[in-house]
């Protein structure tokens, strides 16, 4: 339900917020140039450009720094802003132009946004971003899955006749990822060694959009046609003889040659429709979408070397096939407004996702056809939901709502594999999952500036798909907010509990989040912001696996996977105006996971329990104090300098890795309005 989704979203956002303190540059909130801009050629122009030099020195784990922060040295256009507005709103080509940029010139996060529009004729919006993506993947892959790629995004949207009853929309988006990477490949049998391979990543996504909407007499109809094209042309190869990654001795297997091409091309043409109809006593909102996803691929893989038994091997795999994923979804909602105090929202939605794929797989070992198979798989997910929410306003200061949701999900699969010339027989399976959930909440304004909100949800499902899925769950969300003139304060509490107990294992998860924040503009020249949150997570899941000395591997089925996290986050900001000439900004951000409170890794009775104990929590801290000063040299020029420290520390590391680092970064710049 909405509460659950919002709650989950908030929980997931918390860590992002903790690490999301603004960077020291560019200089923000420092005015430069004439306050009202300048008039030229029938336009009013406001602009500023910040050029500067950014520096960084890093100690400790450089790769982790590149993964988290990644600022380097060099000259940058740290930020810019240009706004051009026509005087009178009747210019020939455009009435509004806004351009903003950040980090251009080799910052790891670069962006630009452009908006151009002419009243009643058109609006054009463009966003462009480029991110350097570096991921060492130490814990998940012993540093053998490194990504050093670049992501680029661009979105273009045009609206014709933006103030008209009939509007036309068109757009284009493009996403690319490319660059070098490392991956691994297991050869030459299912328990063979793992070898590092070089990967040349080349992914591309293009999207075209065309549509329109009509607004008349309380009705709004939107039709959109979208075409998505995506392709993956990633290449894997080796350039020299490779030995195994984690088990080089006594296993003497080697990979002397490896290459793999696996181009994949897909497209998803989509229809989207939305009808909204409004009357005094009711509104109707109906949506329908159909996306016909499909893709085609071939693969050619060649591996040569020596297997773990010392036998020379060469293997070629040739494969081709297709995949399809048509998705149909729609929902229909009615809001009934019989009187001003009461409204009822009821809706039903349906979605149907049908994924099927097939391939022809041929494997040649030592130049001889070992086997050929035809594979087919189908996965269908059909979801039907209905929900009703009623809201009643008792007084102007107090209202309540309550709702119920019912979902019926059916998951079906067909799996088959056969040899060429033999028919499919097909293994068919089906599972139905029912959800019943109820929610209730209130909004209360006991004082003019005080707002209190609370809501809760309880859900029961009968057949969750995985052991970690929600089964018997409850969620609570509450918030208090106070605002008065220059002061605002808020506090919140959220919790989400789930218990999924089944025949062999049980899974329990609990999360609780506490937060408080305040903002106070004490004087015109000084303001304070502070925020603190704590997120507690604990989960316990029954697990089963094989382990033991190589000569006596046995099944362990009565152990538990435990994870405990206590994540504290603190953000403090102070903004000061020092006379007319200088502005000072001080900030401090701390993210600290105290884990389960352990001060050391205690010795456990045996190697298996020791392994599980060591990864039950992940205590770490990450702090970034920063200071920024901006001096006003004259009306059109400011000089800025800033410093930011990044400190990342892991208490114990994981699986033998400790990725701590310290980084001193900063910048000097001139903010100029010419």
């Amino acid at each position, binding site marked *: 339900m909405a509460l*659950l*989704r919002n709650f*989950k*979203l908030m929980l*997931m*956002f918390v*860590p992002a917020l*903790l690490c999301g303190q603004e960077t020291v540059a560019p200089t923000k909130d420092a005015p430069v140039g004439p306050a009202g801009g300048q008039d030229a050629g029938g336009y009013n122009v406001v602009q500023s450009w910040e050029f500067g030099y950014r520096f960084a020195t890093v100690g400790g784990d450089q790769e982790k720094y590149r993964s988290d922060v990644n600022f380097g040295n060099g000259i940058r256009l740290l930020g810019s802003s240009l706004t051009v507005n026509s005087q009178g709103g009747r210019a020939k080509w455009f009435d509004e132009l806004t351009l903003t940029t950040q980090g251009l010139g080799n910052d790891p996060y670069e962006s630009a946004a452009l908006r151009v529009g002419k009243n009643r004729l058109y609006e054009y919006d463009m966003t462009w971003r480029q991110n350097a993506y570096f991921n060492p993947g130490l*814990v998940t892959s*012993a540093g053998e899955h490194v990504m050093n790629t670049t*992501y680029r995004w661009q979105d273009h949207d045009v609206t014709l006749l933006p103030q008209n009853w009939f509007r036309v929309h068109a757009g284009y988006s493009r*996403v690319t*990822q490319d660059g070098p990477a490392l991956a691994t490949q297991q050869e030459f049998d299912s*328990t063979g060694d*793992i070898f590092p391979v070089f990967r040349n990543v080349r*992914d591309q*996504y293009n999207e075209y959009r065309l549509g329109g909407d009509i607004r008349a007499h309380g009705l709004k109809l939107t039709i959109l046609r979208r075409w998505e094209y*995506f392709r*993956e042309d990633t290449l894997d190869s080796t350039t020299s003889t490779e030995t195994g990654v984690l*088990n080089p001795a006594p296993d003497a297997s080697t990979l002397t040659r490896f290459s793999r091409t696996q181009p994949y091309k897909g497209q*998803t043409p*989509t229809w989207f429709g939305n009808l909204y109809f409004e009357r005094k006593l009711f509104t109707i909102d109906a949506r329908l979408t159909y996306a016909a*996803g*499909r893709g085609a691929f071939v*693969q050619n893989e060649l591996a040569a070397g020596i297997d773990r038994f010392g036998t020379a091997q060469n293997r070629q795999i040739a494969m081709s096939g297709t*995949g*399809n994923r048509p998705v149909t979804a729609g929902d229909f909602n009615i809001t009934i407004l019989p009187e001003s105090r009461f409204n009822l929202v009821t809706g039903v939605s349906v979605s149907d*996702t049908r994924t099927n*794929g097939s391939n022809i797989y041929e494997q040649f070992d030592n130049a001889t056809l070992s086997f050929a198979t035809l*594979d*087919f*798989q189908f996965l269908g997910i059909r*979801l039907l*939901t209905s929900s009703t929410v009623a809201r009643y306003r008792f007084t102007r200061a107090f209202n309540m709502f309550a709702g119920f949701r019912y979902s019926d999900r059916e*998951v079906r699969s067909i799996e088959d594999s056969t040899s060429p010339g033999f028919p499919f027989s097909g293994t068919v*399976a089906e*599972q139905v999952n029912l959800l019943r959930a109820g929610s209730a909440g209130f909004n209360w304004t006991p004082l003019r500036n005080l707002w209190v909100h609370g809501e809760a949800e309880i859900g029961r499902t009968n057949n969750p*798909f*995985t*052991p*970690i899925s*929600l089964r018997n*769950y409850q969620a609570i969300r509450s918030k208090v907010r106070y605002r008065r003139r220059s002061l605002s304060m808020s506090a919140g509490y959220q919790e*989400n509990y789930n218990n999924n107990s089944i025949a062999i*294992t049980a899974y329990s*998860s609990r*999360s609780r989040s506490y937060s408080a924040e305040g903002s106070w503009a004490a004087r015109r020249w000084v303001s304070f912001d502070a925020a603190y949150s704590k997120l507690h*997570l604990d989960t316990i*899941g*029954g*697990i089963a*696996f*094989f*382990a033991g000395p190589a000569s006596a591997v046995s099944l362990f089925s009565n152990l538990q*996977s435990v994870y405990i996290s206590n994540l504290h986050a603190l953000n403090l900001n102070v903004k000061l105006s020092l006379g007319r000439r200088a502005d000072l900004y001080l900030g401090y951000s701390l993210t600290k996971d105290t884990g389960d409170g352990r001060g050391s890794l205690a010795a456990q009775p045996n*190697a298996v329990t020791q*392994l599980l104990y060591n*990864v039950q929590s*992940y205590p*770490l801290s990450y702090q970034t104090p920063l200071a920024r000063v901006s001096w006003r040299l004259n009306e059109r020029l400011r000089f800025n300098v800033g410093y930011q420290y990044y400190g990342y520390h892991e208490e114990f590391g994981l699986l033998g890795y400790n990725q701590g680092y310290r980084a001193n970064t900063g910048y000097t710049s001139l903010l100029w309005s010419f």
Partner: protein
Amino acid sequence: MGGENATAKPAFDTEQPCLRCHIDKRGPFVFEHASVRVEGCTACHYSHGSTNTRLLRRPVVFTLCLECHNGAGTFGRENSGVFATSNSHNLLDPRYQRCTMCHVRIHGSNSDPTFLR
């Protein structure tokens, strides 16, 4: 923390928004990792931020995998359970602690039902 309940999603979500950028996870694949399609990316990832590498829900990958692949009896498409790990996977051997070192195509594969390539 439990996964986002896919049965509670509005039916209008026809695609995971994550796939717009993570093109290589998009598919459709011949061999889908069913939990990815049924429960979505949040079955394994905190998509909006995590202190764990690759935004995973657990600091190491093997606990994440084993919480589903534990031989539990009533789950999965075939109602015969999500498969437990093989007896060849000695968890004290470092290579088996990093499941995705071998199962590199864990989001879905066109060639291998166990996502090895």
